[in-house]
């Protein structure tokens, strides 16, 4: 559908951004300062959590969105205006922001924030307004099935994809060394239950022994009981989807209780860079499934990396995972508008339903309820190593991927 391995230069990026800014200024004058685009301008509203509980992820999401906007300005025969506001990691603020942005602008599409809490709040607003909505960092499947989504599309690994990716990661371990005893820490939330069930069913069917499945309260700070239970059940592989704060606390307490599994996967918990800044080497070996990880190849990955490295000063050779995740969303938006040949909501919706998309996380289409079609997109599993998240599964030939590190040694040997 698109050829996106031609690099975006700094000049073209600035040209696109300046063009969008100029259009926004002109439109602002025309509408008495109210903002909004002309008939030809594609106006996208979105929020990112730049303050509040998810603030560590806000900058990465914004960067991915802005790189994508620049790309859209290059590729589309119309200007693309992106209006992003800080939702303060709060669903109520997010709703107010979207209300304000859609009231003051002719918005054609909405892009989501981070986490099921914020993405579903944005999605509910978009469904009410009959506007196409794209959201990442949102693995929870149930709302897609139960909330009659018509406008919401999620180009992101869902709970079933996370379970598939976990199984794939375990398959990387030679059969003789492969662990068999699985422990699941289930947050007491809808997504927590859904993810735990996928893990239990998928790994159980594959012959793994689920020796522990225990719930914990979201926001809990004391994991000592779960750690004791896991130790008592001789858990070898620990799977959970805690909040970032919860995940960090849990590993700290594992260390102080001198217990560690052989493999640890904390979906969403180990996503942000705060994981390493808080834990340092104690955070090594942890796996996550953040949607995109350095080491993926094809479909514009090289171009994304080059653009990111030229636009932002960074010492690390590894991009933050959420830049890739949010950039992937903008690729879907770009291709949907190209296929629609229009910025009318119905036409974009129709394209989202019918087209196949090629993004930095693979090639996939959507089901009618907005879920990515089962088994199509890559659900990469990343691993923390030397302060960076790098692709552990699936194997690629990228120098930014790594050979899956297993097992996690005991604390006394780390």
């Amino acid at each position: 559908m698109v050829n996106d391995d031609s690099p975006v230069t700094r000049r073209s990026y600035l040209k696109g951004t300046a063009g969008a800014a100029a259009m926004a200024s002109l439109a602002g004058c025309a509408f008495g300062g109210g903002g909004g685009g002309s008939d030809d301008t594609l106006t996208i509203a979105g929020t990112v959590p730049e303050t509040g509980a998810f603030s560590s992820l806000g900058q990465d999401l914004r960067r991915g969105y802005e790189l994508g906007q620049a790309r859209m300005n290059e590729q589309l025969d119309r200007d693309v205006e992106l209006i992003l506001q800080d939702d303060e990691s709060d669903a109520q603020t997010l709703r107010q922001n979207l209300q304000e942005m859609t009231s003051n602008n002719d918005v054609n599409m909405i892009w989501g924030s981070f986490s099921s809490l914020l993405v579903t709040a944005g999605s509910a607003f978009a469904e009410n307004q009959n506007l196409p909505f794209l959201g990442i960092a949102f693995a929870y499947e149930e709302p897609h099935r139960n909330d009659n989504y018509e406008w919401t599309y999620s180009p992101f690994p869902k709970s079933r994809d996370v379970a598939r990716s976990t199984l794939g990661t375990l398959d990387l371990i030679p059969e003789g060394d492969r662990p068999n005893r699985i422990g699941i820490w289930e947050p007491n939330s809808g997504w927590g239950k859904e993810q735990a069930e996928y893990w239990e069913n998928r790994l159980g069917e594959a012959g793994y022994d689920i020796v522990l499945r225990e719930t914990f309260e979201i926001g809990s700070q004391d994991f000592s009981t779960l750690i004791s239970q896991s130790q008592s059940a001789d858990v070898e592989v620990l799977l959970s989807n805690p909040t970032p704060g919860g995940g960090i606390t849990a590993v700290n307490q594992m260390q102080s209780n001198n217990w560690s599994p052989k493999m640890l996967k904390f979906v969403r918990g180990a996503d942000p860079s705060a994981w390493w800044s808080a834990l340092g080497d104690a955070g090594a070996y942890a796996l996550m499934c953040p949607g995109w990880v350095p080491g993926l190849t094809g479909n514009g990955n090289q171009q994304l990396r080059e653009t990111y490295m030229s636009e932002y000063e960074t010492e690390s050779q590894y991009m933050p995972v959420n830049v890739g995740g949010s950039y992937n969303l903008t690729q879907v938006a770009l291709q949907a508008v190209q296929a629609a040949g229009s910025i009318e909501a119905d036409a974009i919706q129709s394209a989202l339903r019918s087209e196949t998309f090629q993004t930095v996380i693979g090639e996939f289409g959507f089901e009618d309820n907005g879920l990515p079609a089962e088994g199509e997109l890559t659900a990469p599993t990343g691993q923390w190593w030397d302060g960076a998240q790098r692709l552990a599964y699936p194997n690629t030939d990228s120098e930014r991927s790594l050979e899956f590190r297993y097992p996690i040694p005991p604390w006394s040997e780390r």
Partner: protein
Amino acid sequence: MVTGELVSQSIVNGLLLGGIYAVAALGLSLVFGIMDIVNLAHGHMLMVGAYVAILLFAATGITPLLGMFLAIGLLFVLGVVLQKVLLKHVVGEGIEQPIIILFGLALILQNIGQLVLGGDARTADLGIPGSGIDLGFVFLSLPRTVTFVVAVLLIVSTWAFLQYTRTGQAIRATAQNRTAAKHMGIDTDRIYVITLGIGTALAGAAGALLSMLFPIDPYIGWSYLLKAFAVVVLGGVGSILGTLVGGVVLGVSENLGALYLGGGYRNVVSLLIFLGVLLLKPEGLFGSGGDGE
């Protein structure tokens, strides 16, 4: 399956955690018992103390056990200034005005924390080499054991101060009857300043200890206020022994609740005990049932 070893470990974990809960609640209990003020900013003062220890640890590597003394000093000054500048005008004027002032202060501290330090959770560690103690049937985590010991020392020191010093006796006299204390020559305004200073300093100490165990962010104030309030009601307002027992009961019941019913019911069990005490012994396990201590 719940084994005896798991039960023992949960009880020990709860016991160690309970010591921290107790010291977190002690300042709230003192201020409530002596000044009749519910310090709604207590949890946020705890957050400030935690950040003092964390920032000191991050900048210099000094263990939060020493950072705690800086937190105690800073929070004592905050309490003194708060009483001299704001609360002295409203103490004894009913419950509403102090609550409004302290609620506002809590929001201010939370927002300052968010603006200055961002929303990310931060943590420190013990900063002392060593591993936990394996007793065979239970494992004692080093940070929890050390913080428990320090928490108990703080509680005992506070008790000794109130019991054996002239200022402590004056505080207790003021708590029993402010008018009579005044007639006996006690400067009750000064006593209130000292009391609030001690209460906030204890919040700072608790925060510094907590920073070694749990991540701290600018929003933790309300949750620790709730836990501290539960401990105060359980143990009895103004009772130091009651605070210690209340903290331990809360910590152990949370851990056993998580073990037998699942972590999702962790707080349900402790809050049911809290409600039970309110129904059967509203003055708390060690409360006097009358005025003052």
